[in-house]
């Protein structure tokens, strides 16, 4: 059955049922995720007290898994804003049921990504020097540094997407408030800011929401462009490239959509909301993944072509080496998983099979992680001066912290899904026909 066959009250009950007090299994998973986070935190603490030496990093490879994770998580964040803001402006109806969770994913992914610039700092206790704040030394950050631009972009992105997320939640929290009892009611009451759905409120709310969407749209494009400039503004062969911004944005959305699939498919199953998050929604995303997959594949090809066409020996050498050198395995994982596997979605049967969607979603995520890994590590390991060529192998600490970041992300999302409406009630209702007496069906 389709979403539009539901009634208003059914929507409410379907969504709010997700918020009912959790069962034992839920707490079990919660504990598991917490302990995973614990592992990461311990590893980080160890790294802080001993020094960055506990990683596999070295000279020449000064960046490794941490920056990879950072770019990966920022990338994940992007599809959320894409779905909630850009598709909102384009009035894409299929976004309605999924945008809330996508948006949540954005906020949590940025919260995760934001940790890595700190984790990779040699002297993390001085992280605040990266922010422009008045101090007795009269010292300011270097606004020419891509890293500062990055700090600004990511912190802006976090703020804006959180606000956007919260505002979108208001009417639904109010709905939850009206249903809930006891302490939950109190909490929701506070969070809802006393939302009452009066006509004036809806009026300003509409305007504000539109502005948020309008602001978030250019922001999301800019953020990953800036992230890509962390590399493109350097002179390292394989980094110093003008295609990086579009290439990274596409890649970000590619991985983001894949992550949405990976999260939503279990979610709709567990909470039995297949009626709301329908197969059509998922298919629509699969179609977008085909597009982004093609763009990413095109970017890979272009890189090689330019490397050859430019006649720049350093550029050429690095790409030859990527495909055939010490990191060939990682390289081919990236190519196959990101640009070939998505093509399977051309097959309608695969596109509409939940199992396939889930599996391929995960593969694409793996592929996109390796994309960043390959770009970062190979270029550094094999740049201008042959004497200084080196090799990088991640250490256990880096692995533990990466693991922890996944734990952290899913922990946040897991708690969210049980506490806040993971599907927008109000907007879903907008999809339904208005309940009218004459010529309409009974609401």
């Amino acid at each position, binding site marked *: 059955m389709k979403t539009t066959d539901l009634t208003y009250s059914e929507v409410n009950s379907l969504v709010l049922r997700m918020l009912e007090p959790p069962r034992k299994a839920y707490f079990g998973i919660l504990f598991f995720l917490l302990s995973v986070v614990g592992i990461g935190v311990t590893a980080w603490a160890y790294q802080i007290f001993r*020094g960055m030496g506990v990683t596999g990093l070295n*000279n020449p490879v000064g960046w490794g898994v941490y920056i990879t994770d950072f770019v990966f998580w920022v990338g994940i964040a992007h599809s959320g804003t894409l779905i909630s803001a850009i598709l909102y402006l384009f009035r894409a109806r299929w976004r309605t049921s999924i945008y809330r969770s996508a948006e949540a994913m954005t906020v949590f992914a940025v919260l995760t990504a934001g940790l890595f610039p700190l984790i*990779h*700092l*040699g002297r993390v*206790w001085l992280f605040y020097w990266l922010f422009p704040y008045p101090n007795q030394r009269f010292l300011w950050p270097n606004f020419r540094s891509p890293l*500062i631009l990055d700090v600004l972009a990511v912190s802006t992105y976090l703020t804006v997407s959180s606000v956007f997320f919260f505002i979108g939640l208001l009417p639904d929290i109010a709905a939850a408030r009206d249903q809930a009892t006891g302490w939950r009611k109190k909490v929701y009451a506070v969070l809802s800011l006393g939302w009452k759905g009066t006509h004036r409120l809806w009026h300003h709310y509409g305007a504000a929401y539109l502005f948020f969407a309008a602001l978030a749209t250019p922001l999301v494009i800019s953020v990953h462009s800036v992230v890509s400039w962390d590399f493109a503004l350097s*002179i390292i062969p394989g980094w110093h490239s003008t295609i990086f911004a579009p290439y990274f944005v596409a890649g970000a959305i590619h991985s983001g959509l894949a992550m949405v699939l990976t999260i939503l498919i279990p979610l709709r199953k567990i909470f039995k909301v297949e009626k709301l998050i329908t197969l059509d929604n998922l298919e629509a995303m699969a179609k977008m993944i085909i597009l982004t997959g093609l763009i990413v594949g095109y970017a890979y090809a272009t890189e090689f072509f330019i490397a050859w066409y430019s006649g720049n020996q350093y550029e050429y050498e690095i790409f030859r080496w990527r495909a055939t050198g010490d990191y060939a395995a990682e390289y081919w994982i990236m190519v196959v998983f990101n640009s070939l596997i998505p093509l399977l979605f051309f097959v309608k049967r695969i596109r509409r099979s939940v199992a396939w969607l889930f599996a391929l979603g995960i593969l694409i995520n793996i592929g996109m992680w390796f994309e960043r890994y390959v770009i970062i590590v190979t270029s550094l390991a094999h740049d201008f001066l042959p004497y200084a060529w080196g090799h990088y192998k991640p250490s256990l600490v880096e692995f533990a912290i990466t693991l922890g970041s996944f734990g952290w992300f899913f922990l946040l999302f897991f708690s969210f899904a049980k506490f806040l409406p993971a599907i927008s009630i109000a907007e879903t209702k907008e999809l339904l026909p208005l309940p009218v007496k004459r010529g309409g069906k009974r609401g």
Partner: protein
Amino acid sequence: MRRRDFIKLLGVASSASVATSCGLTPENSQKLIPYLVPPDREIIPGKGMFLSTTCTECPVHCGISVQVRDKVIQNRHRQVPIKIEGLPGHPINDGRLCIRGQAALHRLYHAERFKQPMRREGDGQFAPISWEEAYQVILQHMAKVKSDQRKIGYLSGRTTGALAELMDSFCTHVGVEKLPEYEPLFPASVVNASFALFGRKELPEYRIDRCDFLLSVGADLLETFGNPVQNSRRIAAQRKKGTFRWVHLEPHVSLTGLNATQRLTPKPDSEWAVIAYLLQRVHQSGRAKKTLPGSVLQEVPQLSIEKVEELTGIPKEKLQHLEESFFASDRPLTIAGGVSTASQNGAFLAALTGLLQWATGQVGATVDYTTAVDYSSVGSAAAMESWLKELDQGRIGVLFISRCNPVGTAPQSWQLHHRLKKADLVVGLADLPDETTALCDIILPVSHSLESWGEVSPRKDVASVLQPVLDPIYETRTEGDILLDLYRLELGAAETVDYREYVQKRWRKASSSRDLPTLMQQGYYSVSAEKRPVRLRETRAANLLRSARPQEKTEAAIVYFPPSLRFYDGRSRRLPLLQEIPDPLSSVSYGRWIAVSVATAKRLGIRDRDELRLGIGEWETQIAARIQPGLPEGVFVVYRDQLDAYPVHHLNPAGEPLSFLSGARLEKTGARVALPILSGSTSDHERGIIAHFKEEKESKHEPQVQMYEPHEHKVYRWAMAIDLEACTGCSACVAACYQENNIPLVGKEEHVRGREMAWIRIEPYYTGEEAEFLPMMCQQCDNAPCEPVCPVYATYHNPEGLNAQIYNRCVGTRYCSNNCPYKARRFNWFDHEWPEPLSWGLNPDVSLRNRGVMEKCTFCVHRIRSAKDAARDEDRLVLDGEVVPACAQTCPADAIVFGNLLDPESRVAKLARSGRAYHVLEELNTQPAVTYLSPHKKEGE
């Protein structure tokens, strides 16, 4: 949790404590400690005081100038050395110093130094005892031995000057037999030849600065042979003249060979044929300045050029070319030595070489015996046989072993391991534990030369002064004082109280007019050496040639055991700094390896870091492989200092142990070794990193198009010029930099991970058989890629053209290092330990960097600062050559020139304009302040 960890914890919690501290130097203690009494030596706090003395890391004995600083150590003022530099004007090294000399402080401050006398207990362990007890034990044994008519032997490393004199009188008076001095690298064949030919038990001074053609055979002039510092300096000077050619023959590959104009690799032990050929050609062509008597000449084998080609494997035309250029020159200098004379036919080769020098009239010209090094007191391995037999028969009851490690370096045939047990008491005089001290019964800790008075004679005509630059750190005494003490205890009254007085007496006698202070400042005084002319002794020469007839058998699968640049004969092996600095040929820092030729590696499928099982006869060892370009097929090299025992038994006719073993069995064990190879690639992949000089080429400096308005420098633009023609890759600069800038030693594991901390490094780039050595450090770029990427302005371009790095502002993103095309930046992955007394040697002008901070070459900004300070006092600008960074200061080849680019008359400015000037990775438009001068292409095989 340990207290320090807790502090760190706080540090993380409250940034302040960690943020501000970049490491604590003794000068920045929280207490303010006054002198008790102002020191007699006028020393200005915060300024260095320079004292002249002599380096004793090897027998060359360079004059050194030691920078002493006043520091507060354990709440007491103490004046301690922080840096050693060559002593300007000293006849041996004139201001320059080698890698080992630069590292000498690591011996002084070594953690394992013997801190007081020790005696071996029943359980074989050493237990500390007092000096008096030690003397008692020794004297008792001596008395007993004398009573039952046995001998007391005194074995020492090469001893000269005051100590030699004292030792002689000690031995004669106390009734001790002075055994022939033991020197592992004693060039017995050469000295033996010059004795036979010219009646001198000496190694002449080779005046490379006077020759116009140099033919060196096996002699590793730049590593250990003769006076490496002076050799490389003279070679560099000669090269600047342009007409100079240098052909080097060696059966393996060495730093010396790779630096020669042309390097020829004859078959092992066939070098003599080339010299024999030249010698007879000299006579046949009537070019001989002094014709050899027939009796001698008939002993010289008659070889056709084809025969020589057959024997040596050197192609005919190469030989002809060699012959031509040899005869073309009017002052051709021939030097034989190293692995070529330490071989079966080495004695013969040495003799022929002597004759060639004579015939070409070079003896007395480029081969100077008036300034020779006297080896009369040193014994060849053969000369040791007699007392070794006595030792074996237990006729030596007490044996003193001083300043040498025969157990570790002497041929196996000495069998010291069980022979030493035959003596009742073996007394070791040493500073660091080694294979020999492990077998001693009593150990008398000898003071480091920087703690000692003394006088050595590096050359017949030079006496070099030793004066203490700091009070002994431990309860150690100088060898001189030990001898005097024993003398006194044995015979009561001694003519002098202590060794200090002893040497100063000598000085007063010697430097009649000059007063001691100036003498001690000058660091040496010249001794009148007898000038009797050198004559050729026909019969002895003929006899030598007859007795040392060459064998023509060609050896297979040869492993050479040459001495190494870093560890000499192995005596410097224990110095941490020298282990940290990679061997310039292989770029391997720590550990042992065997150099395998490219061809052999291909044949046996050997890769770098493969573990090999190396077996020769019954001797066998596991060792890592390192592929070495330029090494002939079937020849392998293992530095002798990497073996804890010298596996050779055989001696050549001159009584010199061979430097190689043949018939090596080599196989892969299948295991891999974590060998720290610091080089990512031995080739520059045609990236023009080494730009060979082409005559037609104009100055490579057509100004590149700049995107932005170039910023101008007002008064100074500090710059450096490095002459790759002169640079030999000797790595002295690296050691100097480490010591000057408090660069931490991080050890093997970190090197394996690729985390060495050197600010300047030697990058060898091989093309075929040849190599060029590129010193690489921060290029102080005008458009530095590292600067704009730093988020906190920790690095930026300063008004004087320096690429400044402000350590305590650094937050450690490491982006600067990523973006540095020269990879010249170093990150502090951990905090570094500076245990006492090593921390005494830290340079207070340079702050310590703690974990999480990026660091790099600063062009020795602290030296620039103090030079500007001095100039400011006199209200003038800094003069050209007033600022000399540590690397440039020590460079024996004078390859590094530093100065102000804005002054068109400065040396560096002139060089930067020259036609040979180029920048590494110029196309990146980083506009480096370091200019390289392109070398001439080697002529090759």
